[in-house]
């Protein structure tokens, strides 16, 4: 951020604090571009540059009352930006260490063992295991996994909170694993 941009940003955030939506939108546009540039300089052209910019904007919005107009703008903004950059980076690393995108998943990735394991679980056994679950768990697991309903839809239909649906589903999956003789992950 150049000193000219910083001066402009200071003026805009002060007007934003007074409730001027046009100045505030201009500020956020300037900050989004700065955030993308800052992240690109450090990480290269990674696909989550927009995530960093958006997370930064959300934090700027939540933190805007902490900006003291008597203080320089850049340290305030870059503290938020570098913090969000680290958060997004950590999140991306966590995801990439645990997940494999389907676009890079080779067809031959299944080992002979896993194919054998897959075929071991026949539909009848799965149905029997499902039938052994308590009614509510069975309904939730079936809705989420067999009928492709969303958590929100299930929670609305059953009159439960979304978290309660997730918890019940998680317990259901664990029970299914146990019933099918699979190891816990």
């Amino acid at each position: 951020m150049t000193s000219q941009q910083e001066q402009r940003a200071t003026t805009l955030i002060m007007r934003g604090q007074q409730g001027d939506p046009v100045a505030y939108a201009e500020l956020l546009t300037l900050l989004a571009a700065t955030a993308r540039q800052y992240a690109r300089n450090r990480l290269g052209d990674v696909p989550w540059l927009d995530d960093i910019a958006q997370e930064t904007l959300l934090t700027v919005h939540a933190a805007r009352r902490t900006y003291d107009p008597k203080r320089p703008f850049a340290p305030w903004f870059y503290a938020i930006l570098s913090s969000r950059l680290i958060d997004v980076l950590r999140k991306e690393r966590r995801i990439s260490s645990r997940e494999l995108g389907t676009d890079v998943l080779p067809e031959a990735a299944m080992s002979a063992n896993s194919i054998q394991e897959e075929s071991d679980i026949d539909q009848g056994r799965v149905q029997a295991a499902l039938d052994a679950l308590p009614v509510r768990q069975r309904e939730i697991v079936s809705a989420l996994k067999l009928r492709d309903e969303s958590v929100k839809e299930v929670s609305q239909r059953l009159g439960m909170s979304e978290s309660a649906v997730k918890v019940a589903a998680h317990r259901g999956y664990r029970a299914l694993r146990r019933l099918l003789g699979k190891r816990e992950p």
Partner: protein
Amino acid sequence: MKTEDLIRDLASRAVPIEPLAAPAVRAFAWSGVAIACAAAGMLVFKTRSDVGALVHEPGFLGMAAVALSVAWAAATASLVMAVPGAERSPLLRATVVVLTGLWTVVLASAVVRAGHGFALAADWPICFIRVLAIGLVPAIVLVGMLRRAAPLRPGWTAALAAAAAMATGALAIQFICPLNDPAHALLGHLGPVLVMSWVGSIAARRVLK
């Protein structure tokens, strides 16, 4: 969501807001609450009978000064940390850690010197709970102040806030508790500061959301 849509959405929510006062100003405001709660605690639980003589004892005054310094430094550090870019050096945080460490070392070495371990520290849970009770309102007020700001490192911020509130309770309990056993002081007076700081650092993301 596209960034442009997010900007439009956030700009539509631009309402006039009052910028927060400087962390030092808010730390003074919090100190007022903390002092009032410590005084209320001393009124409710009654001060020890020999408090008049104790205030001339360097050892007693030293421990009270450490508790007071931890409370003030930790509260100020947490409020500074809740303002992005306001913490120019980690000196204040380090001061809290050093003072709390010193407090722990002094009490632990006194326990060792006393030679009876924790055998006489039976009543410590009473003081532990009283420290929690006295520190509860300062903790709630400080968390409220921090939630209005923007802590970027919630673990540190919440741990410091908990230390500040519990050190307030620990300071008050020194004037209340008639027991001079260091093991009792370590578990019942300093214990809540250490335990709640740890709990604060774990619960930070939920508490300061």
